Every structure is written in C-alpha cells, then in structure tokens.
C-alpha cells in the first residue's frame, strides 16, 4: 500500500523526499507538497512516514489486495529511543498499541571513530583478524578459527559431501 500525503498537514519540507529508498516521494510543483509519484515501486517501508515531522504521510493498503478502512500509524522517537505503533482493523474489532525500543544508547554516541583508535600492527595486518578481534569470536582466549585449529580439511568432489 503505497503512501499518500494529507494536503492539510504537509508543508513541503522534503524530509520524505530525502529519505525514501525508492526515490518515489517527490514535491509536486503545483501544490508544493510531497506525494508518491510511483505507488507500484513503494513497498510500504514506512521510512517517509517515520521521517515526516507533521505526521502528514500515511499508507493505504495496495489496491489490488487490501480493502479500504484500516490504519497502521507510527511514531518514532530517536531521543527517547522508542517506536510506537497503532494498528486498527477494518472491522474495528482490533485496535492495538505496540511499543518497541529502537536503540539502547544515546543516538550515535557509542560507535568508535576508527581514525582515532591505535593503528593496527604489522602482525595484525598479516593476520586474518578484523578490527576488535579476536574479541567475541571465541569462547576461550584463543586465536581466530582456522581449518587446522578446528581439525578440518577441504576435499574436492562429491565424496566430501
């Protein structure tokens, strides 16, 4: 179901245009508001819905299989680190509120800047290790797994299957 935009809420800010992975949210040159130019390339990913500062964008299920009269709304809050959903059924019998975390850390603060960490040694460069390894890839303090360390070899052909 492709997205659509409420005329009275959209102010043409372009956040949706900026974020849409499919390049289908565009600004209409006459109304100067956003709209979905290519509904059959929309997969209802909700990226634009979440990015809209005015809750001006909504979704109406694909016309070829989704009847009218339903609603799935969302509010995503990076500062609070949560996303809130509300699902309403067509027949009005189900109305669900669902809340989920989107991050456990203050946004963007806990990712290392690799230009500022100590440079890798020649030994590390010549090894198979990646940044921060062998942390997390072993149960013990050993080195990276190899065929040899794990008692394995490669055999050609169906016999090895």
């Amino acid at each position: 179901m492709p997205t659509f935009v409420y005329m009275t809420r959209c102010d043409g800010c372009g956040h949706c245009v900026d974020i849409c992975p499919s390049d289908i949210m565009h600004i209409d040159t006459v109304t100067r508001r956003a709209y979905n130019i290519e509904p059959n390339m929309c997969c209802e990913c909700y990226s634009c819905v979440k990015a809209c500062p005015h809750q001006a964008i909504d979704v109406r299920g694909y016309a070829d299989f989704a009847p009218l009269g339903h609603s799935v709304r969302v509010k995503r809050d990076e500062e609070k680190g949560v996303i809130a959903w509300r699902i309403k059924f067509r027949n009005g019998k189900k109305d669900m509120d669902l809340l989920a975390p989107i991050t456990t850390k203050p946004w963007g603060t806990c990712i290392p800047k690799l230009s500022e960490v100590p440079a890798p040694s020649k030994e590390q460069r010549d090894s198979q290790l990646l940044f921060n390894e062998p942390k997390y890839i072993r149960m013990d303090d050993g080195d990276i797994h190899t065929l040899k360390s794990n008692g394995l070899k490669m055999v050609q052909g169906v016999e090895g299957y």
Partner: protein
Amino acid sequence: MAYKTIVEDNIDILVAGAGLGGTGAAFEARYWGQDKKIVIAEKANIDRSGAVAQGLYAINCYMGTRFGENNPEDHVRYARIDLMGMVREDLLFDMARHVDSAVHQFEEWGLPLMRNPKTGAYQREGRWQIMIHGESYKPIVAEAAKKSADKVFNRICVTHLLMDESKPNRVAGAVGFNVRTGNYHVFKSKTVIVGAGGASNIYKPRSVGEGAGRVWYAPWSSGSAYGLLIGAGAKMTQMENRIVLARFKDGYGPVGAYFLHLKTYTQNGLGEEYESKWFPALEEMVGKRYLDIEASHLTHRPIPTCLRNHAFINEVNAGRGPIHMVTMEAFQDPHLEEIGWHNFLGMTVGQAVLWAATDVDPKYENPELTTSEPYVMGSHATGCGAWCSGPEDISPPEYYWGYNRMTTVEGLFGAGDAVGGTPHAFSSGSFTEGRLAAKAACKYIDDGKGEGIVVSQEQIERRRKEIYKPMEHYKIYRNEITAGSVNPNYINPRQALDRLQKLMDEYAGGVTVSYMTNEKLLNIGLKKLKILEEDLEKIAAENIHELLRAWEVKHRHLTSEAVVQHTLFRKETRWPGYYYRGDAMRVDDDNWHVLTVSRRDPVTGEYTMEKAPLYHIVDENG
C-alpha cells in the same frame, strides 16, 4: 546538456552501494587504512537504503561461539545442506568465523538485541537466528559508516565501473549520476567494493497494479550488484540459483520467527500435514545424499528449503490449497501474539497493514501462505554473485588469487549480494563480508597494486554520453507523437520492465509456469533478451527519475541474461522448489556436483561458461 561533471579524484576505496555489505566495508576500511581516502556512493540515503532499510526483527546469522553454541564449520554444513551442496565453503567458513564480532559490536553501538534471561546469551529464535528490536538497524550501521568515510555521496545511481587503461582487467573507479541534480559523477579510485543489491522485479510478480511494489526483496534492489560486475567482465557464479520464498500471502511477511520461535506450523486446505507425503518421491528425485527422511527424523538434519517449497507447490497444484500457517494455537499466548505482530512491524509493515485491511486476526484465523516469484540475490538462502577469491589460510588453489573477496577483476571487491556462493550470510554476514573486503582492499593498495591507473577523458565522456542517452532519445522522438506513452521509436522504463518480467516468467521458470523451464524455453528466452537489449538502447527517460529507472532495468536485464545462461548450462534440477529443468528432472551428481562460473565479454556480449570444482570441509580424520 546543462548537467555538470563532478570528479572525485584520488580515492583509495570506493564503496558502491551502502547497504549492510557496503556499510561494513566503509566502517572497517578506516581501521586498516587510517590515511586512506574512503568514499561511499549510494543510490538512496544511507540512513535507509538497501534490503535492511525498513529494519529487521532478527539477525539470522550468529554463531554464538563465545557462548559455546556453534563453531564456524557447523554453519558451513548447514548452508551446504540447505543449498544442495552448491556453496563456497571457504568463503562461508571465513564469514562464519568473523560474524559474531560484528553482531556483538552492533550491540555495543546500541542495537537492541534480546537476551535469554536464563542463560544471558542472546535470545535464540532458531539455531542460527537471534531476536532483535531492529527497526533502526540500518540507521545505526549507517552511523558507523559515516564515522569512517571521508565523504558520503547519497542519491548517486552508479551505472558503470571505470576500467584502467594502462593494465587490462583492472578497475579504476565508477561513474553515475545524481538522481536529484542530474549531475554526472566520476569517482576515480584504486579499489571499488561493490555492496550493491541483488534483484527483485526481474520475474513477473504475483501482484498486479500497485501491489507490484510489495515484492519480497526491496523494489529498489535492482540487480546493480550484478549489472556493475557483469558489465566490467567479472566472472559470476551460481546465477541459476534464484530463490523462491514461502511467505504470508500478498504481504510477503516473514515466516522465520513464526516457525522457529512461535512454533506455528503449516497445513493444507483440508487441515492436514502435507509435507511428508511428498518426501519419498522427492528422495528418489534428488537422491538420499540430499534428502534422507530417516536421517532427518533421527538427527534433526534440516530439510533443504527448496525441497519444502517443492512439497508446498505440489500440494497446491494437486488442488489441496491454500496452505495455511497454523497460528491460532500460539497466538492464544498474549506474549507470543505480541511478538508475532512486532515481527512484522520491525521488518515488513505491509503485512500488518494487509491483515488490518482484511481483518485477519491470526488469533482466530490461520493466515494463508504462498510461494513467491523468484528473486536473484546472494545473501539470503541462496548464493548468486561474483566469483571471488577466498582467504589465503583456507582456500584451495582454484578459489584463491591473492585478496579476500576480490572478484576476477583486479581491485574490484564484493560484499553481500555481490559475492557468489555465500548463502545464509544475511545482514550480519553481509556486513562481515564488507569488513573482510575492506581489509583486503587496503592490503591491495599497500602492496602497490593500485598504482599507475590511467582513465582517459575519452572513457569518461563515452560513459557520460551513454548514461544520458535515454534522455536524449526522449527529447528527439517525444514530439513525433501527440501525447501518451506509445511511441514507435522508444519504450519507457516501465514498459521495458514489464517485458523483462513477462519473458523471464514464461521462459525462465517464473510463477505462472510453476517454476518450470527447459532448454528450448531458455533458448527462446535468450533470444528475446537479446532483442530486448537492442530495445534498451532505445529506452527513453522523460526526466532524471526515469533515467534512474532506465538504468535499473538495464542492470536487471544484465542480471537476467546471466540467470538464463547459467540455468541453460546446468543440465539438471538441482533445487526442486526453486526451479525445474523439465528436460533434466533429477539431481545429477555425476556431472553437476560443481559450481557454475560464467563470464560475459564486455565488448562482444558473448558468454563463456565453465565448471569449477566444488570443495567440502570435512574432519581431518574423517
């Protein structure tokens, strides 16, 4: 034309396409190349691009080695069984031995991973899957990539790779255009890591009209991983191995958490278990090596996904559809019910929309499943992609030419969908492959392999002309007609896509023929693809947005041709349930226990096909 040419010079590592593979590459490249120039070119906005744009509710590739759960070779065996043997076990082992490092770092960065309160380990969904609240998975890894990259160019549709003119078969960067400004972008680079996506929308979808957007893989996955690599003359592997997904009907909502965590199960329209009755005949068709019912029963050896599809397809064709997912039991537990809905909201909102629209409450009604149209990609449960070198400490000689994840073109690396033979990488494995490619690319540069690259102005101008040709073509012929989209001199991108989907569906085993094809059909398909290629020279773009769609369909076309060539080459039915060669309906291990490798000559367009040996990892003393 008024579009500017913008040249970004002296790049060391260009990441073309920054989904999970590309972000992993950009992030890691900075560590091994702290003094290097790292640039990202991305078709959309890296905060929401690639297959994970919408989010994910699970990480499907996590060993849990530090919790004593699995070793890398366990995952290799699993992927090998699931793909009927046809995998690159060196690449898989390599990915598996590193993947946990990526996943634990995601948690450090703030990605909410669920923990098992009893064990303290990550909450398992299945043996390889862990559960996450992953709505912001992509924005979080994008932050990591942005911290590492010197520059991020969003909204650049990369159309071609640049080739070095001083040394044959060496990459020299890439070109493309900005889908907002229309400007021509030239990236001159010593190495390129292709992190672009696999292909949705090359087979006619089940949906019609608007619903064509509700594909299983993202509609913006335009096969550019393959279009770019094939166009540069890189060898490809396993391109016949397209995938068909059994998913919730119409919305294509995922079933993994439902099967594994919620313990829902399938039944036919009569309320019966149906899978097992198809297995004896199937066991005969594929051989006991690949389906041993007794062994599977005793040892919980997994049954390959394609074979379960086969049972599904045959049950429906026998008139006992629809196939239902039995949710009514699990959903009585309010906690499981909530997980069931969160699972969609985290990664396939459209399925929640569909159930709300059709009043399907899985607590009181068992929803329908379907099998999808085929998709071509290399990171989910299938392994299409480039023929890449493996790591030096694992790979046998046929699989090794110096730099990990380097294609057969020098300086050209892959990650995620771009790398062939590595199914079951999923998000975390793709990110890991990006990291591996980045380290290798830095080494390639440090070894002096990227020196002396020459890109002539002629090459840059030739590509520029080629890129904007659809707009020129439109301008020349548009006014020959009064109005509308019917023109004797051109087709528009949508018309080209429709033709591609129809012929792939009918000749290369799409959904309307129950995934069936044969040599005759494939040859007709190839002929039609050649003619379509001629017409793609006459594709018309009214504006920059259509120019984007024009280049997407050209990449999809190159991908499709490779799929048909590979399908023709492999004279057997290796993956019943993904596709059938009606003229060779059995698994033929005598002739086809091998990987298929192709190369399209960039000048002539001619294909050469070869078999590559298949190696398996076994116990040293086995």
